[in-house]
């Protein structure tokens, strides 16, 4: 296994593209190194992207935030302005693993690991996050909901790297939240995860909404019907019930040791309501 740590994205993309065997990007390594050590993966090349400044910084851009793909959960939590604008995204990232894992785990890694249960992904989908991707043919943008296609399968071409994510400018009276169901209080994988982002007008009517779901299908989902159920309402009980029904309708889960199809589908609706209420409370105060 070869290790490279280039200091530009172009050099990293070139290395990945030129490798004929399996080549992997190393950010925090909390998934990649586990898979290498348990012989699930045996890459010929590992490209560490942490010496590339864009992957390791949080910057304000166009009124929003550009977050490097390898910025750690611990660093997200310490960024007061980001936490104020996008508390749901930061909370979702901070649910991943232990304090030790938080010292390394990143948004880019959580997405590119390709698990449908990744906690930060539904929150990023709800936030409308857009990934900036650099590859051998230059740079392109892709919405987060369009990146993971199926377990371990991404819409990235050979040599492409997610460099950063742009979280858009926050309008006044906006709030986001993420909740997941796990059978214990800490350190587990989501049975269902739900991210909601809302914007209200001056009268408290919802003018924009996005709802993301995780662990209920082969890929994390953007549930547009749930958003439609909330937009134009005061996010009252009837609207929440409709949004919950839309979330349940969008579920295509599997039965596994974490939960049955019926349980996951039901919980998706419950979490959608609870998450929306937290986002609503935050939007009212923002």
């Amino acid at each position, binding site marked *: 296994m*070869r*290790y490279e740590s280039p200091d530009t994205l172009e050099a990293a993309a070139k290395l990945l593209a030129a490798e004929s065997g399996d080549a992997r990007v190393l950010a925090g390594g909390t998934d990649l190194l586990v898979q290498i050590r348990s012989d699930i993966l045996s890459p010929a090349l590992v490209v560490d992207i942490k010496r590339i400044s864009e992957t390791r910084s949080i910057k304000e851009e166009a009124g929003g935030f550009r977050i490097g793909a390898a910025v750690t959960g611990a660093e997200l939590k310490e960024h007061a302005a980001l936490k104020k604008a996008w508390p749901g995204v930061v909370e979702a990232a901070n649910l991943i693993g232990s304090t030790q894992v938080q*010292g390394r785990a990143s948004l880019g890694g959580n997405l590119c690991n390709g698990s449908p249960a990744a906690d930060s992904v539904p929150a990023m989908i709800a936030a409308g996050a857009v990934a900036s991707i650099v590859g051998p043919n230059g740079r392109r943008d892709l919405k987060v909901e369009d990146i993971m296609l199926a377990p371990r399968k991404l819409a990235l071409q050979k040599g492409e790297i997610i460099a950063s994510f742009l979280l858009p400018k926050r309008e006044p009276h906006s709030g986001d939240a993420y909740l997941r169901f796990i059978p214990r209080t800490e350190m587990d994988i989501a049975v269902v995860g739900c991210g909601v982002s809302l914007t209200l007008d001056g009268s408290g009517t919802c003018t924009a909404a996005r709802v993301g779901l995780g662990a209920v299908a082969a890929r994390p989902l953007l549930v547009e019907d749930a958003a439609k159920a909330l937009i134009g309402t005061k996010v009252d009980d009837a609207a929440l019930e409709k949004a919950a029904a839309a979330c349940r309708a969008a579920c295509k889960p599997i039965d596994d040791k974490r939960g049955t199809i019926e349980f996951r589908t039901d919980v998706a609706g419950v979490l959608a309501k609870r998450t929306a209420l937290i986002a609503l409370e935050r939007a009212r105060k923002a």
Partner: protein
Amino acid sequence: MKHHVTTTVNGDEVEYLCDTEQTLLDCLRDELGLTGAKEGCGSGDCGACSVMLDGRLVCSCLVLGVEANGKKVDTIEGMAKGEKLHPLQRKFLEHAALQCGICTPGVLVAAKALLEKNPNPTETEVRYWLAGNLCRCTGYDKIIRAVMDTAAEMRGA
């Protein structure tokens, strides 16, 4: 090809040669003879290999040895100053907050990181912070009490 790594461990500049596959934990134990950090699970679940990497608490089993190049690593071996134990180490002895001792270096490194960040944690904060340090002997209560007592003593000092 071996990597030539230069890094700072517990304040001393050190060098080692390692393969890409070797973790920082392997390098600390096998190349530098620092066997305080333990391998429990090898998958980042148990925290027995906890060290500080550039001031961040990490599992050294989930860091490649080569990644430590040019960085600052702090391990349990740097915690006592000569014969003088760190207050956490002293309180762990007083409270009998260990039995077999395998998890103890990781717990101490993690608890020290917490108290440096938050000198006055609640019991809940201590329990969440240490959720990634598994102990199969103590049932955790003595560990939590030792950390809370240390925090109180250090605030008074």
